[in-house]
């Protein structure tokens, strides 16, 4: 259930950014999570619903993206970004690979409205 702690950090960061941009509404936020973090998207959504309650994020949609791991194969030399936890080279199938990355959690973007003149019709 590490998802709740991740979502708390996410909401804090998103509300800070919203304030900085003088947002009066937040339509959606996009978060990219490294595949190594092993989050369950459904739990992320539940955590987001509970955590965002009573804040500017309450009606926002949480969009999740996956950050891949870099897999380097010692046998065929292939360097690939993989978006699932594979323990073999996606090119030749060798298990002599090294993986790195895929651990970051990033608030990528937000769709906000900035009051009159911008309104909810923003895109």
């Amino acid at each position, binding site marked *: *259930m*590490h998802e709740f*702690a*991740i979502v708390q950090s*996410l909401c804090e960061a998103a509300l800070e950014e919203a304030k900085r941009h003088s947002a009066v509404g937040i339509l959606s936020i996009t978060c990219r999570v490294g595949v*190594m973090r092993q989050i369950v998207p459904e739990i992320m959504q539940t955590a987001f619903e509970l955590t965002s309650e009573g804040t500017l994020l309450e009606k926002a949609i949480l969009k999740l993206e996956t950050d891949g791991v870099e897999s380097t194969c010692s046998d065929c030399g292939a360097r690939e970004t993989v978006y699932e936890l594979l*323990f073999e080279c996606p090119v030749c199938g060798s298990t002599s*690979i090294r*993986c790195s990355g895929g651990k970051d959690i990033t608030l990528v973007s937000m769709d906000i409205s900035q009051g009159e003149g911008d309104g909810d019709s923003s895109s």
Partner: protein
Amino acid sequence: MEIRVLRRLEDRNQASADEISAVLKKHEIRLINIMGGPGCGKTTLLEHLLPKLVDRFRCAVLEGDLYTTRDAERIAALQAPVVQLETQGSCHLDAALVLRGLKELPLDDLNVVFVENVGNLVCPANFDLGETARIAVMSVTEGHEKPSKYPLVFSRAHAVVISKIDLLEHTNFDVAAAESDIRVVNADAPIFKFSHRDDVPQPLIDWIVSLST
């Protein structure tokens, strides 16, 4: 209006983790975070490690548990200072709780503090405790596929212990496969094999001694 943020999230836990690092530096203490699934042998490893370190270091233990104090009692029986960190159902330790526990220990008198994390292979690995080193423990009875199922904990480990190695012949655990999967996510961490029937391997003790504060 779409705004690009691209802000990497600092764990909200990070402020406490940084404070722990500062406390460790000030008191020249090594903090070693032991992580692994339930029943993999974390407490047993500590029971064997503490007597071996007593000549060199003054050690204490922060014992993470969901509810009971049973593990803390096992450590207290070794005459080592122990503080129970009861998470009340939470599946991991966070830095704020560890910091609180740390402050209850006689820090001026200690060289090494072990943290026994809650038995869980997923969540604890997500929380930086400001520690000096992390040890991942897996037992042969759990199966050799653990590193490929739970790569984060193994990728972040500074050392890996394969425990219950005396039971190897009774299982289909493939040591080479386990080591190969650990190497996929972690090129450097030394891998130690341990059985409670034998002494803790000397290279593991040497490795702990070699950790700098």
